[in-house]
């Protein structure tokens, strides 16, 4: 689904990531951890074609990232739902329209009942008409998750999705991501919150990747 083959990424003359070889299998659940500045966000950006590797090869859905045109990358992103820490929305549109944006962009019809159900699933059913600037951090994260999955992506990437949330809200979001995984979605969560990872272990069979010294390694039992 997403495969890295000896990938490196350089930024500002220095190598941020190097010799990364891994494969995200369909239906898998991964955490990506590491200290701040280790390159977790960069890794996720490589995963959905926002950045190009400086060396090695990234394969997205069996196609070499380098061979993809700008349009191909856009189409590929419709198969990858992205939840970022600093969720950005179109502030002039109500929440429901923001969540439905991937469908609008793809030229697909929005089924009102489906949209309503999705908003209810993430606990935002009463805020469909609210404008994004009026939402709290937790509401924004859940709205971003709803937007990421409305089009039915194969993969969900989340970059520090609980970074600005309290523990209760973090667990709620984690539960939603676990539910998605049970629906067959591949999930990769970048986080430095080890408590969240430990909590997830009781909910889902997950693997933990750690970025250390520019390399991504499978983390052991020392979490």
């Amino acid at each position, binding site marked *: 689904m997403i495969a890295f083959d000896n990938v490196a990424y350089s930024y500002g003359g220095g190598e941020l990531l190097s010799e990364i070889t891994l494969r995200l299998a369909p239906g898998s659940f991964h955490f990506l951890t590491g200290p701040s500045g280790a390159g977790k966000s960069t890794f996720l950006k490589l995963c959905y074609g926002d950045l190009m590797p400086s060396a090695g090869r990234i394969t997205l859905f069996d196609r070499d990232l380098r061979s993809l045109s700008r*349009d191909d990358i*856009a189409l*590929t992103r419709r198969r990858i739902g992205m939840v970022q820490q600093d969720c*950005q929305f179109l*502030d002039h549109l109500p929440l429901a329209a923001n969540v439905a944006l*991937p469908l609008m962009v793809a030229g697909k019809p929005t089924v009102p009942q489906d949209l309503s159900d999705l908003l209810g699933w993430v606990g935002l059913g009463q805020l469909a008409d609210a404008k994004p600037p009026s939402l709290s951090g937790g509401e924004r994260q859940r709205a971003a998750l709803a937007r990421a999955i409305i*089009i039915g992506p194969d993969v969900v990437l989340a970059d520090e999705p609980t970074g600005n949330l309290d523990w209760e809200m973090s667990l709620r979001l984690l539960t939603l991501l676990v539910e998605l995984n049970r629906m067959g979605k591949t999930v990769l969560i970048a986080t430095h919150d080890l408590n969240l990872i430990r909590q997830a272990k009781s909910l889902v069979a997950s693997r933990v990747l750690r970025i250390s010294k520019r390399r991504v390694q499978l983390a052991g039992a020392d979490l």
Partner: protein
Amino acid sequence: MSLLSLIKPDRQADRQADRVVPPSGHTAWLTSFTAGAMAFLAVFALALSLAAGRLADRWSDALERTATVRLSAPEDQMDLQTKAVLAVLTTTPGIASARAMTDAEQRALLEPWFGPDLPVDALPLPRLIELTETGAGYDGEGLRQRLMAEAPGAVLDDHTRWRRPLAVAASRLRLLGLLSIGLIGTATAAMITLAASAALAANAQVVRVLRQVGARDAYIARAFVRRFTLRAISGAAGGTLLGMIGVALLPSTDSAGGFLTGLGFQGISWLYPLALPPLVAIVAFAATRAAAFRKLRELT
């Protein structure tokens, strides 16, 4: 993406694309104002160009087939030499008609400079003989030599020295009008390009969000192109309407004293300015589309 697809109101995809761009901003009125002001100026440039063309044609037509023989002679020989000149002219191939102007006609010619009370009889004025050519024309040099032999005081003026600079001036005026329209179009494209680039830069967050959810560049560009094209065509329509009203309110020929004779639109030429809003829309469409794709490549 075609221009037609942008102005068809029932295109749901375009309307949806349009929604993703925030509805207001300084670029909105700037685009409309620029398109309106440029269309307003273009109406006057068009009117000037058309008027110059008509003026050139009229001057050419009026002077092209006529000539004047100016006869200076002692008073007692004036009638005799006038007859001799007329005899020469009526027997010259290529001349359709010739006649001596009356004192009243000569007085009318001089009246603008000397007033209505000019005593023509008391002044040693030359006699003016007006001739009209046939379509084949006449041999000017041969006629000059014959006049010199039959009436030494007769001078042939075929109006060339007047006609040519007037026709050249009118043609250049027409060219200047067309050049102005071209410059106005270029300036419009430049202004709309700047406004579109500024709008894209100001909406970098919108572009980021759209890209994150899988929008292609064409989709993002369409949202901005549609917005700017519609703003431009509405501004241009307003500017054109005001320009046409302005031309219609120009002083009439009589009150303008002849200098502005014909400046404006006549007959079917009143329809010509109506082509300006669609032309501005085409310019805006092309300029915004080029600017959008260029800016989107920069925002990668």
